[in-house]
Structures are given as structure tokens and as C-alpha cells.
């Protein structure tokens, strides 16, 4: 009986030690994140990995917190929040979405985009990467375009617009805003320009559909 108890204790101990060391430690966090927080982040990374989420953006977020001198609990909170946003992004963009799509999708969600809007964007561009489209959405919100208007604009360009078209569109809106235009007016003017270009067929090979005004 005593032998069985001893073996049981040894087995339980081995399993405990094994499970404790089973979770992978991210070497880039070592020495940069305060110790209790680092262990929690490692667990969050394990959890994300197990759910098939990209872990690189989570590591990046933790390292950003470290270089900016944020306290450990704040870094953990930020990593946890981002993991949640990545999971939501994947739920609406699809399991097959690339990591960079999820990162950009999470940014759009943080900007205030409705998950349904991202799902609609996926339906409109089923075979194309959404990285740039969703990133531009977040960027438009950042320059002051109301989120619903930005969503509508990005969706209106979704059929046929290439990544370069989205980036050029965003750059033009930003330039107009920098020159003093209101964000909504700048967006409207640039959408009109895209529509006119599409109508005239002067898109130099582009096939951007005429947008509907947000």
C-alpha cells in the first residue's frame, strides 16, 4: 500500500512537472517582460496556438509594451484583448484567413467596424486578401472618417479594386484632409473620382466598380 502511494505521488509529481514545462516559452520575451507577466503571456500564447490563432502579433504587442515601459499587468491585458480581437476576426473572415488578414481585421474591429461588415467584405472579395482593404478601413477611421462611412466606402470599392487602388484611395483622402478638407468631404470627392474613372474606363487596366456613396 505504501509502495502504491509512493508511486502515485511520484506519478502525479511527474505529470505536474511535465505539464508545467510543457508550455512553450517565447524566448523573445525573456528579460524584456517582468517575470509573472511573462508566464501569463506564455500561457496566452499557448492558448492562441492551440486555437490556431497567429501568435506573432501577440508577441509583438507584448514587446511593444515592454519597450514603452508598460507594467506587466497592462501588457497582459493588451495581449489578452488582442487575442480576443484576432479570434473575432477569424470568426467573421473565415478559418482559412491568413495571419496578416486577421491582424488587419483586428485593427478594423478596434477602429469600431462591425464584425458583420468584415463578413460582408469577405463575401465581396472571397478570393482576394482582405489585408489591405481592412487596414485601409482602420486608417480612414484614424483620419477622422466616421466608422460607418469608412465601412461603406471600403465595401463600395470591394468589387474589383486591387490593393494598390485601396492604398491610393486612402492616400488621397489623407492628403485632402491634411490640406484642410473634412474627412467626410474628402472621402466623397475621392469616391466620386473613382466612380468617374470607372465610368470613363480610364482606370489603366483597373476594373474598379463604380462605388455607391456612403
Amino acid at each position: 500500500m505504501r509502495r502504491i502511494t509512493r508511486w502515485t505521488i511520484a506519478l502525479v509529481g511527474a505529470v505536474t512537472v511535465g505539464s508545467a514545462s510543457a508550455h512553450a516559452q517565447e524566448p523573445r520575451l525573456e528579460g524584456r517582460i517582468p517575470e509573472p507577466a511573462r508566464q501569463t503571456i506564455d500561457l496566452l500564447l499557448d492558448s492562441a496556438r492551440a486555437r490556431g490563432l497567429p501568435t506573432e502579433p501577440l508577441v509583438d504587442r507584448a514587446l511593444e509594451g515592454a519597450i514603452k515601459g508598460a507594467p506587466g499587468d497592462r501588457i497582459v491585458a493588451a495581449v489578452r484583448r488582442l487575442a480576443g480581437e484576432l479570434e473575432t476576426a477569424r470568426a467573421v473572415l473565415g478559418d482559412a484567413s491568413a495571419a496578416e488578414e486577421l491582424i488587419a481585421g483586428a485593427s478594423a474591429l478596434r477602429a469600431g467596424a462591425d464584425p458583420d461588415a468584415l463578413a460582408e467584405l469577405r463575401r465581396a472579395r472571397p478570393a482576394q486578401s482582405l489585408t489591405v482593404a481592412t487596414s485601409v478601413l482602420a486608417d480612414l477611421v484614424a483620419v477622422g472618417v466616421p466608422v460607418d462611412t469608412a465601412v461603406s466606402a471600403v465595401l463600395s470599392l470591394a468589387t474589383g479594386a486591387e490593393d494598390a487602388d485601396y492604398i491610393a484611395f486612402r492616400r488621397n483622402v489623407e492628403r485632402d484632409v491634411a490640406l484642410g478638407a473634412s474627412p467626410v468631404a474628402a472621402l466623397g470627392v475621392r469616391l466620386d473620382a473613382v466612380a468617374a474613372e470607372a465610368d470613363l474606363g480610364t482606370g489603366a487596366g483597373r476594373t474598379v466598380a463604380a462605388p455607391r456613396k456612403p
Partner: protein
Amino acid sequence: MSEHDDWLAQAVEVLREPVRIDPALDRRVMAEIERGPAPDRPGWREVLRRPFGGQLAVTSPLGGLALAAAVALGALVGRTWLAPDSTEPPSTLGTMAASVAEAVQFVIVVPGATSVVLVGDFNDWSRTATPMRPADGDGVWAATVPLEAGRYRYAFLIDGTRWLTDPSAPRSLDDDFGPPNSVVTVGAT
């Protein structure tokens, strides 16, 4: 804004334009590599011994660029041909060609700074990985980073203590730690 500032802003705008490489270049390089060594190709020693009778003339910046590309291509392919004991092209070349990164130039004007470091998602937010170089004596600092398609957050660290965002790039809305970040989005090429 003074005339000098205008000039700097224009210079920054020009420098910021991404360096785009012809997408067909990869295909041409790979086609050349896959074709393999021509049976009648002379050995490299023989090539070196040949008298050089050609005339080199670069008449335009574009011509210079094309020449530079040709030299780079030549160096790449030549390295394959010259590799000792090599019977087929190294497989790493295929990996390099398949992973398309765009050279993105970051530029910031910080008069009086003694050091400017570019930190972001692309370099693990490292204080040492990407120091920027002063482009001239007017406080213009620049760094070029190869980035694959994606969305990256970044900021400039001035003299090791002060954070700056990029005034000509979108601001990131997901700043969890106080000092804000800028965003660069690289599209698929």
C-alpha cells in the same frame, strides 16, 4: 511653414515612395536558374582571361538602374555557376524568390537628434535592430526595411527616450501603452 520646411516635406514625400521591383523579375530569374548551365558555357577563368573590348556607357538614371539590376542578376546567377561542387542551383534561391518583400523606406525629420531608431512590429520593437541614418545635415533620417504584405505598427525613438509618430502615415488606433504608433500597410505585389 518656411520654404526650407516645404523643401524638406517634398524630399520626404519623394523618399517615401516605395521601391517597386518588377514582379516579372522573379519569374525571369527563376527561369534563368531553372534553365541551368548551358553546355557550351565557358569556364569562369576563360571568361576572365578574355580581353574586354566592350564600351560601357550609362546615359540615363534608368539605364543605370537597369545596369545595376543586370549586375545584381549576374552576381546572383554567377554565384550559382561558380559554386564549387555544385551540380544544381541551390534550393534557397527558390525560397528567396518565392518570398516577395517590398523595400519600404521610412523617413523622419528630426533636427538636432543624435540618434533615431525605427521600432515596430517588423523588428520585435528592438532598440538596436534598425537604427536610422542621417540622410544629410538637415535632420532628415532614413531607413529601409524589407516588408512582406501586411499591416505593421511602428514609431520612432529619438535619442533613446522620446517617441515620435510618422507625421505622414496613418495613426494606429490600437495603442495600448500610451505613446501612439503609426501604421504602414504593404499590399501584395
